[in-house]
């Protein structure tokens, strides 16, 4: 076999060599870290996926060594292959960051943002994306699009209201199960994922649509509302399964197995598809051979505490004074004004931090 030619591509000033035919996104993933554009619809294991969500848009500032002209529009990095000598700007481009924040805003205007009751919270790609690229407030003032919940069979629930129409589940159902019974109805902002019209999805591998869903639109009914993912401990395990590889991740709390999922890599993509029996029916520790704790890349905002950096320190634009027509905030009862132990002349509300004993000892003596 002849060596495939290697192309040099520079992404955010970092050069990497990849085989011809690699997409910009995969080249950036090879570099890793912040350079890898976020992807909501692209899934390397699904043929034809990608190009739809537009979160992975990048700027090509130099087409190739042969044709150095820049590309006029931002391109979807998941569907654009690299050329030799290509130069790409991702996080170093203001245009990209601006467009990406726009895409996040578009994705969120009809999203219910019901993270507190959503089972996906904590491992939701949209949640991460919004924290990383979104804004704290919304400019959308209209009623959000809602749908009724549908049961796709007795194990999977579809909650279209949360869906971002990435088409991943459609590709999964198409390519994995070999029987098309699941697609998109209608068009535009009233398009919906559906089985025509309310059929059950009945297939050995259909449970995988839950794993590929980037948001909480497709959820495992055996796990719904049972626990939050950040309380669960992922364990690699396997069993001798006649239909699939049997390599799974168990999500335990104590000795109890709360859910079973496929093993996912650092980009949140499934390594081996698993069958419905493994996923839904084998919920006893005794069903499995435990390999050991799984090292999950806890990239999610909740696991990493990312939110402390961006939202926690976020200063509200509306101050107390503005809301209360110029009135100063006042403590309902300042304990120091009635205490004889402490110094009454200190107004605690003037301190911009928690009071400390030194506040009382160091002054006015």
């Amino acid at each position: 076999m002849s060596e495939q030619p290697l192309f040099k591509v520079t992404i955010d000033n970092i050069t990497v060599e990849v085989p011809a035919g690699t997409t910009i996104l995969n080249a950036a993933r090879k570099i890793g870290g912040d350079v890898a554009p976020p992807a909501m619809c692209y899934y390397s294991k699904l043929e034809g996926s990608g190009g739809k969500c537009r979160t992975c848009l990048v700027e090509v500032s130099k087409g190739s060594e042969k044709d150095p002209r820049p590309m006029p529009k931002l391109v979807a990095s998941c569907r654009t292959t690299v050329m030799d000598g290509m130069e790409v700007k991702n996080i170093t481009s203001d245009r990209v960051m601006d467009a990406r924040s726009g895409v996040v805003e578009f994705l969120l205007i009809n999203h219910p943002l019901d993270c507190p009751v959503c089972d996906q919270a904590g491992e939701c790609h949209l949640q991460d994306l919004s924290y990383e690229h979104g804004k704290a407030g919304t400019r959308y003032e209209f009623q959000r699009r809602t749908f009724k919940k549908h049961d796709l069979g007795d194990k999977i629930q579809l909650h279209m209201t949360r869906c971002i129409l990435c088409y991943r589940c459609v590709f999964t159902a198409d390519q994995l199960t070999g029987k098309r019974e699941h697609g998109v109805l209608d068009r535009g902002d009233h398009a919906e994922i559906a089985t025509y019209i309310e059929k059950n999805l009945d297939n050995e591998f259909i449970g995988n649509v839950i794993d590929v869903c980037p948001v909480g639109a497709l959820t495992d009914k055996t796990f719904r509302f049972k626990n939050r993912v950040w309380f669960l401990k992922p364990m690699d395990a396997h069993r001798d399964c006649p239909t699939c590889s049997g390599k799974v991740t168990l999500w335990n709390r104590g000795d109890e197995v709360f859910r079973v999922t496929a093993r996912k890599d650092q980009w949140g993509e499934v390594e081996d598809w698993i069958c419905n029996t493994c996923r839904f029916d084998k919920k006893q520790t005794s069903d499995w051979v435990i390999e050991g704790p799984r090292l999950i890349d806890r990239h999610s905002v909740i696991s990493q505490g990312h939110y402390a950096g961006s939202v926690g320190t976020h200063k509200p634009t509306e101050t107390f004074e503005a809301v209360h027509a110029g009135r100063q905030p006042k403590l309902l009862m300042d304990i120091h004004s009635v205490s004889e132990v402490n110094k009454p002349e200190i107004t605690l509300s003037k301190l911009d931090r928690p009071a400390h004993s030194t506040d009382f000892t160091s002054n006015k003596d």
Partner: protein
Amino acid sequence: MGVKLLLEKAHVPGIRYIETYRKEGGYRAVEKALKQMDPASIVEEVKKSGLRGRGGAGFPAGMKWSFIAKPEGVPRHLVCNADESEPGTFKDRYLMEFIPHLLIEGLIVSSFALGSNDTYIYIRGEYAWIVDILEQAIEEAKANGFLGKNILGTGFDCNIYVQRGAGAYICGEETALIESLEGKRGNPRIKPPFPAIEGLWRRPTVVNNVETLAAVVPIINMGGDEYAKIGVGRSTGTKLISACGNINKPGVYEIDMTISVEEFIYSDEYCGGIANGKRLKACIPGGSSVPILPANLLLKTAKGETRYMNYESLSDGGFATGSMMGSGGFIVLDEDQCIVKNTYTLARFYRHESCGQCSPCREGTGWMEKILKNIDTGKGKMSDIDLLWDIQRKIEGNTICPLGDAAAWPVAAAIRHFRDEFEWHVNHPEEAQKRNYGLAHYADPIHVPA
């Protein structure tokens, strides 16, 4: 009178039938092309003619034809895009309805040039009666030996099939059209690969507009060089313009692209002036998706030169002070028309027609429609205007197909040129429900109606 190439014979009684059509000189191009020319020289003639795609983008047709990949043993296809759905555009309907054999003739010649043995006409579902007309024309052509096996004894086989769409605007986008033709959901494909490499059933495909393919007939008959002499600059040949709106004589006109916009609107040969003696306020010169122009920028460019009805002159000044030739849907608005309502109507259309595949277009079009509805019904805020601008900016250029741009441009142009009218709607919500804003500063500076 300007030169007429396509519609010259359109009103001869019985031209819909092949006997009359042949009597009037029809199917000469097929005989000439198939017997005296080879495919490469036809492509060369079309290149020489400078014919530009008449569907909207204006891409040179000869160039598009020369891009088609020719792998060994893989069939190639020609697809005629008759999914004419752009609001304000009805030129293809007119052509197919009155002189269907011109399209069939153009298709046979083009199929020969491209090596397509199975050629498709993808027609919008609403044109149900035209399907019958076309199918009858195809039957007649077959009976006369212009279609089917071994056409005119040259050994070239060609069949034309008419496929009805289900009435989605998005299926006028060439890759969505191909998907729909394959029997799938009409979602645009992600390019590359372009259809010229991988199109219908993953085979090399060329998709052309009805008018483009019909124009191949005069090009073959008169030669590419002669055809290029008509018109001006890179706008060669004739163009069908479907004029509508507040004009005295709405209809389809064939122009040779040398006349000025003013002449087109006011001369009795064409639109015949603004209806009811009103004054011109604005015009959308190329179908609903191109930027709207106020009267003062429509008749003269920003440099003060006369604006002509051709590709270059209409786009003079870029989007800041110009527009586009587009598909030739010429929509005229008089002083009684409300730009906000007009923009809202367009936004509603694009929201309804967005395929929902990529997020900026799916969500953005709906958002713009809701804001415009608020402004139109007197519930708007001043910040909404800037928000609209920001939304359209984030849709444009960030979508898979040009529908996102098409939805963003009318909103952008309306705010760019008519911001005062939007502000008036916000500031005077009650008055805006009762009366119209009128002309303000963008009245046409030169024409005073008699």
